[in-house]
């Protein structure tokens, strides 16, 4: 089969995903009354990335062939899509959602940094436990649940960092610690998988080769190299995302504190305008 034909055949047009993404896209447009804001592009970028991650040949490679591509897919679902989606939701919508009491209480609990952090990191470590991970590879429903889990816990994790609701967003220094520790702990998992000398997930030893591309893939990446690359993808790009978030947070804080005041004034006024 030619390369082009293989790529065409490798798309996984799962109906639930198509319907879900369409619903997200259309629902947003309707709620926004088809008006375009600056943040709309973030939201749609998130939907597009999610759609591609779950439907494009990346999904086929991830589910059937390569551990590294599976890690890349999970990275997109838990660390790229949720922040993009969150960034796209305007403040008024959050306030409308939070006007419902049960949702307000849920948000109150879930946005506490220790809880949000634990949600994100625990989901990460738990789903990489070999038994669970392999079970998800063999069981399609569990796999869908796994992906939903990443999307939901990712959203919970990024919410305290991104939310536009005043007073609900973490202030700078705790946010930096939050992101830094998350970076460290997800790196540790990546480091562990990279340097592990044995095969953690036996599924990838003998994948069922429906597309007939296994020999070409194996000529590029042996099984062991595939695992190492997966660990490296979990480690590095993930770290870059957290590092960028830290830099953006610090940059925003930097922009906020006043640096030159407009009125040159004497010592008395300087002490009353004391800000940090």
């Amino acid at each position, binding site marked *: 089969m030619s390369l082009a034909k293989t790529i065409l055949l490798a798309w996984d047009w799962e109906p639930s995903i198509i319907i879900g993404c369409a619903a997200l896209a259309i629902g947003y447009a309707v709620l926004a009354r088809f008006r375009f804001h600056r943040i709309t592009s973030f939201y749609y970028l998130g939907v597009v990335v999610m759609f591609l991650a779950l439907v494009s040949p990346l999904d086929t490679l991830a589910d059937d062939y390569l551990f590294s591509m599976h890690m890349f897919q999970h990275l997109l679902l838990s660390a790229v899509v949720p922040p993009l989606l969150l960034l796209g939701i305007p403040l008024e919508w959050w306030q409308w959602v939070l006007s419902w009491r049960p949702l307000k209480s849920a948000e109150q609990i879930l946005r506490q940094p220790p809880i949000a952090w634990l949600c994100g990191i625990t989901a990460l470590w738990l789903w990489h436990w070999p038994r669970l991970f392999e079970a998800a590879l063999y069981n399609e429903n569990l796999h869908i649940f796994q992906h939903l889990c990443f999307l939901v816990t990712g959203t919970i994790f990024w919410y305290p960092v991104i939310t536009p609701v005043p007073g609900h967003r973490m*202030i700078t220094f705790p946010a930096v610690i939050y992101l830094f520790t998350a970076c460290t702990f997800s790196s540790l998992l990546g480091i562990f998988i990279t340097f592990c000398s044995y095969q953690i997930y036996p599924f990838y030893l003998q994948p069922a080769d429906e597309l007939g591309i296994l020999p070409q893939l194996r000529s590029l990446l042996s099984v062991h190299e595939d695992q190492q690359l997966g660990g490296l993808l979990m480690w590095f790009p993930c770290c870059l995302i957290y590092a960028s978030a830290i830099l953006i947070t610090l940059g925003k*804080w930097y922009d906020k504190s006043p640096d030159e005041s407009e009125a040159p004034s004497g010592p008395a006024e*300087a002490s009353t305008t004391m800000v940090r």
Partner: protein
Amino acid sequence: MTDLPLDQRTNFPVVAAAPDAPATGAHSGGWYRWVSTVDHKLLGIMYMVTALAFFLIGGLEATLMRIQLFVPRNAWLSPNVYDALFTLHGVTMIFLVIVPVQLGMAVYMVPLQIGARDMAMPRLNALSFWLTALGGVLLYLSVAVGHPPQAGWFAYAPLSLPPFAFYAGMDYWALSLLLIGIGTLTTAMNMILTVVTLRAPGMTIRRLPLFSWMMLVDSFLILFAMPIINAALVMVLADRLLGTHFFKPVYQGSAVLYQHFFWSFGHPEVYIMIIPAWGMISEVIPVFSRKPIFGYTFVAMSTVAIALLSFGVWVHHMFTMGLPMVEYYVFSAASMLIAVPTGVKIFAWIGTMIGGSLRFTTSMMFAVAFLIQFTLGGLSGVMFSAVPVDWQLQSSYFLVAHLHYVLFGGAVFAIYSGFYYWFPKISGRLLSERIGKWHFWLTVIGFNGTFMVQHVLGFHGMPRRIYTYPDLPGWPILNFISSAGAMLLAFSTLVFLWNLYWSSRYGKQAGDNPWEAWTLEWATTSPPPEHNFDAVPPILGRRPLWRAAHPQAEDVKAHYIEEPRLVAREKRLLDWVSDNIPRSGMALFLASETLFFVSLVAAFIYYHYVPGYRASAHQALNPLRTGLYSIALFASSFTIWRAEANARAGNNSRLHGWLLGTIALGATFMAFQVLEFVGLCHRGIDITSSMFGSTFFTLVGFHGLHVLAGLLMLALLYGLLAARLLPTLKRPLATLAIYWHFVDVVWVFIFGIVYLWGAL
């Protein structure tokens, strides 16, 4: 203390300074004043003087090496002596010169730049200095006993271990680095607390002079990099002295693991060395261009980016170790990426100079030379990020040239620049410009003469660390040129010493602000009085003194609108930190200790997969029994929490009880641990018996040492309370409680990983 406005709070009693009041203690002058001082200025001077002394020693070592390399097949120095020379030269220059002198300049200047009276923890400041200085003395004691370390400054295993290194020199190396490392770590904690809590009113973080900002970032980098090398050194010492097998391939240990640990520290370390230099350059260039720095935000943020990225590039020191290519691709890309923020800064500094009114004082000349030489060093460095190039040039003289271009041509030149800039403030006299120009040109010619040709020598294939070389084409003449340059460089250092001596006696009086600079340290006398400032000028921007001199100027930027609630919460956090400096310091220290334990746990997990390990673990450990006596430790967290509550309420009688309870529970835990260890040894499972023994006893043992330290502190506090030497334990106990809870949480992880995951 909390009733004082923030600008007047210090961590020690404020004394009204009468002009002739004695400085410290009963004796006001002489050596006693220096030995007992906690004044950041005196400590800063001591740091700098100590670093200068070690610079001369390290320079002598380098000079001896270059004399040995003047001609091929030179038999003047024996190989062992040469090995000792390059080892000591590396350790001295990195850990006893560059890091301490920059920390010393920061310890002196940062409180002045932020308008503070001293650092946040002056006594800790003194402890840090003495640890560094005495750690250096310990290293050179190895020479005195005739066994200097000879395995290179980074001492790869197993060369650093028996049977390749039976001599005691490596023990001195490891122990002195541990001491120096702790001194550096405590200075970093102090620096963070100082910059965060003791800024004068109006000095927002965004108005910080770049040197202070760089020291803040540098301190965080030190906080997280040092524990990794501490763990590695502990493992090396355990291998050497206790018979563990961490890095001994013969016993299933891994020599490569040492390199991973070392370079995880080592790469952030090189940024630790260069970031203060960037800070000094960012002060000097704007002042001598009469222009504010171009791209302040870029320079500040790019430093944070570099600090974050620096932890993710260490494998580029190991490209020749035969690790899988997949890893090499990722680290190669990351290493190229990290060059970008540095490049941003070079452009910012050049942009500052363009259009400025340049004054080429000696300080400025060193700064300009820094720009050129550091860029050259950076370019040769980024060449190493390409794996095939690295395979050709690793451990050749090209590498030696690269590292000297960034560390000498970069950091040392920046230090000279900062020194010529700040010497007037420290001593009250200007350094002679005439001698300074001689110093500058001799240094530039000597430095480039020494190291430029080494790039070529590297291409010709000359490896580093060889005590002599054969008569291959091109090698003798290039080595001769390099050695001649080194002699010139050595002479230039003598010129610098002459400048110091001459200017201290005959230098022009400097006055408050000889350079017409703008940051706060120039708003007080030279040298500053003990209390630093009689009055801090109003701080309305980044250049307070310029603004004071030009009140009508139009150089104002628009306000940014703040989100009120965020600012209020941030203020509350900041106020809490300022009111709780000991607790905040403990939190910083514990953040660092976390990485120490993470490193030991990483070694444990790594060796878990060695054949036979799981079986040994399963046979040796009894998770149920250990879990039961762990309850004692967890219960002690509850008792110390109650003790803290009673201390806050002033209920000293109940406090006694809860404190004793905590001590008793902690001691119970320790007793059972000791019993477990003894039981294991009786069964033949000790620290030398297998990889399990090595990792288990080290990890659990270190946790036990932490518990023991906590128990000793608790006992001390109890004793002080019982003897009525302290009226209340509210603050010390609050600080200790954080430590105690930390030790508990660490045990949760260790128990889970060692006893549950590792043994079931």
